[in-house]
Structure formats: structure tokens, C-alpha cells
């Protein structure tokens, strides 16, 4: 029999305590190697759509905030188009939709200024609700964690979102819904463990 000959993905290893050296060196006290850290903004002020702020904190199973994590986000523009790789493009030229944050040095809270994403279709045409994809790495996390943030003011769209619909334990769905704090600010805290453990995705 022939073999498939396919390679195995390189196994993950933890990002470790010093991921900031590699990914946000200016933040971590290594200035001058790069002019600036990547991913500090997702869009310019000219980007179309509703400008919002998304913030949150990552907590471990004891309720302690992580201060050594790295958070990355990826989202569609206000029309639901991704800025790269999207066959329906082009996206808003003032928008990349990718952000990276080490969180605040003292509190661990991360903040992204962006625009509210539009709805993106599944391959079968069903629309997903507006969402932001997040990826969390840190010391003690052996494989980067994938999750999504949905919006509390999108109840109708959330109700027909095919991904949320897959979740058997409906009482866990609220872990994926941000909390509105007014003035376009949304809070999305991530809990790695515990009764209100955030839903993570294998995707």
C-alpha cells in the first residue's frame, strides 16, 4: 500500500515567561531592535463602522490575573470581510483586523481599539454572528488557546450562529459573550479554569 506521506505538525511548546521578548520587545524593555511592536492597532480612525474598545483579563484557576500572557485577536471588518485571504475581499483599506497585546504590566488587562465586525458566512452560506477570534498563549499554556468573543447586543444573530449552536452545554455559552460597559466598551474576561471556564475551541 502507498503511504500518505503527510508530515506531522510541529508540536507546540509553551510560549514561556518571556514571550514578550520575542513578540513585543519594545514593551518588554528591549527598545531599538524594531521601530515598534506589531499589532498595537487593528485599524485607523478612518476605518468604516462602529468604533469600539474591547478589553479583558485572563484569569487562572485560582482567580489570579495572568500578567505574562500574550493575546492576539483576528476579526473581519465592519462589512464582515477579512483583510487577507478572504475570497470576497477587499476589506476596508484602513483596517487589518489583527491585534496583539501583552496586557498591562501591572494588571494584565489587555485593550484593543477596533471596529465592530460584520457577519461572516459559513461555507454553506449560513451567517455567523459578529465575533472576534482570540488566541491566548502564556507560561503554563502548552498549546495556544483559541476562543471567540461574541457581542451582547446581537441576540438575534447569536441565536442563529452555527458555532454557538454546536455547544451542548448552553449554560456555558455566556462565557463567550462580552459584557457591554457603555460608550462602545466591551469586556471579555477569559477564565482558563473553574466553574465559569471560558469555552475554548479545537479548530
Amino acid at each position, binding site marked *: 500500500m502507498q503511504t500518505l506521506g503527510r508530515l506531522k505538525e510541529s508540536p507546540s511548546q509553551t510560549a514561556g515567561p518571556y514571550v514578550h521578548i520575542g513578540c513585543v520587545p519594545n514593551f518588554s524593555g528591549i527598545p531599538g531592535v524594531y521601530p515598534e511592536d506589531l499589532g498595537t492597532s487593528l485599524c485607523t480612525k478612518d476605518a468604516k463602522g462602529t468604533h469600539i474598545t474591547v478589553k479583558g483579563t485572563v484569569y487562572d484557576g485560582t482567580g489570579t490575573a495572568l500578567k505574562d500572557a500574550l493575546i492576539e485577536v483576528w476579526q473581519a471588518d465592519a462589512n464582515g470581510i477579512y483583510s*487577507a485571504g478572504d475570497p470576497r475581499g477587499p476589506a476596508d483599506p484602513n483596517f487589518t483586523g489583527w491585534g496583539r497585546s501583552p496586557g498591562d504590566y501591572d494588571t494584565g488587562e489587555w485593550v484593543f481599539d477596533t471596529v465592530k465586525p460584520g457577519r461572516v458566512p459559513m461555507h454553506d452560506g449560513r451567517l455567523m454572528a459578529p465575533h472576534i477570534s482570540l488566541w491566548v498563549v502564556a507560561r503554563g499554556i502548552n498549546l*495556544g488557546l483559541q476562543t471567540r468573543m461574541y457581542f451582547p447586543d446581537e441576540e438575534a444573530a447569536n441565536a442563529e450562529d452555527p458555532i454557538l449552536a454546536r455547544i451542548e452545554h448552553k449554560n456555558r455559552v455566556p462565557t463567550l459573550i462580552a459584557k457591554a460597559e457603555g460608550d462602545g466598551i466591551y469586556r471579555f474576561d477569559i477564565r482558563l479554569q473553574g466553574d465559569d471556564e471560558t469555552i475554548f475551541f479545537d479548530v
Partner: protein
Amino acid sequence: MNSPMAHNRPPEGGSLFPRDREWHPPAYFEQYKTSIARSPKRAPISFPSTLSEETGPVFTTDILGPLDNDLILNFGEPGEMAIGQRIIVHGRVLDQDGRGQPGLLVEFWQANAGGRYRHKKEGYMAPLDPNFGGCGRTITDSDGRYVFRTVKPGPYPWPNRVNDWRPAHIHFSVFGRAWGQRLITQMYFEGDPLIWTCPIVDTIPDRAAIEQLIAPLDLDATIPMDSRAYKFDIVIRGRRGTWFENRKEGV
């Protein structure tokens, strides 16, 4: 804005191959103590990739400075060099079908030759090297190749069990074209006995998977009288073809 405007480009493939989670370390690993309170306990929810996972940020070479892939020089004072064993690390980023992946951002970071990181929270007594920062980056070429120059990092002790030492290693962050290909891993060096004592290495269940992270000495790529070379290929998740995908039934 300071991140590169991503390009609108045709999709390079369809759905992502499912990740073999048994090849990766489990979230919880008792001997790596920090993982105990940072490991989700519930099963992750699986679903076939969507555009949200099949697209991803693109980086172009205009973000790169000429010394970004030279850790011997990129933090040093003019005319000064980092101290340590001079090495070149090179390899390719491949997908699971073995195809070189062009245009991908690869970032790397490491301790200095004495095993010390340049970081406020680092307490090891080994000295900082005033001419070594410890970070670098590059973008793969049309064949998926990357290369950088650095000094070989030292092993270092870390607070876990009483006497745990990390083997010499370099951390890698890789972007695919797809958000679902995002990967952070570490490269180890051929012949390092500490590899087989390290609980972080040991989080990987399969010895063959660990071997995939050990870079062999590459004498052919060594520059005589200058730098030894190590070769380290990185494999990111593959994708199916799109021939029978991305179309609605009946269309």
C-alpha cells in the same frame, strides 16, 4: 497604524486539517507546575474551520530591518557583537503536505550565551550581555526558507521542581496564512542531555514528536572559521484543496 496592511489575496486552500491533539502536549501536565492552574479542564469544542480560521494576517518584508535576523548585531553597540558561540539557524516552514510556505512571519527569542534573558522578571545570576537583546524575526522566502544568525543560548535553571534546568532552546512563533495555523514552539539542539530531563519537553507525549523539535548540527551549512549551522524545519497545519469545497449544495 503600525501593523502592515494585509493584502487581499486569493485563498490558498480550503479547510484546515484537523489538529492531532495527541501529538501536541496536553493542557495539564503535573510535572510542569504552572500548567496546573492554567489548563482548561473541559473538552474544547470542535468544529470544521470557517473563514475566521482559514484567513489570517499577512506580513510583508517592508516591516523588516536589515539586522532583524541577526541577533549578534541587532541590539549591540556599533562595532560590538554579542558574546557566545556563533551559530546560524536555518530551515523551512512547510505545511503537512511538505510544501514550502512563502511569506510567513517567523519570530524567535532566546536567552543569551549564559542562559540569561533580558527581562525584568528574570532572576538568574548569570550576567546580561550588554550587546545581546535576544529577539529576531524574518519572513520566509518563496520556498518557505528562513535564516538567522545568533549565539547559542545557554541552558538555565528555573523554579519548578528543586533542580530543573531548561535545555538550550530557541522559542519560535509562526504565522501561517490561516489563523488556525498559528503556532508557538521551541527548538532544541542535537545532543543536549538536558532535553530528556526537562518537564516542558516532557509535556509532549510522543518521543517522535519531541525529536521533531531537535535541530541537527548542519556541517554543510556551516561557514568555515565563522559560524556553525543548525537546521530546523517547522511544519504548520495543512489544508485541503478547494475543489469540492466552499460551494453551497445545489449551486
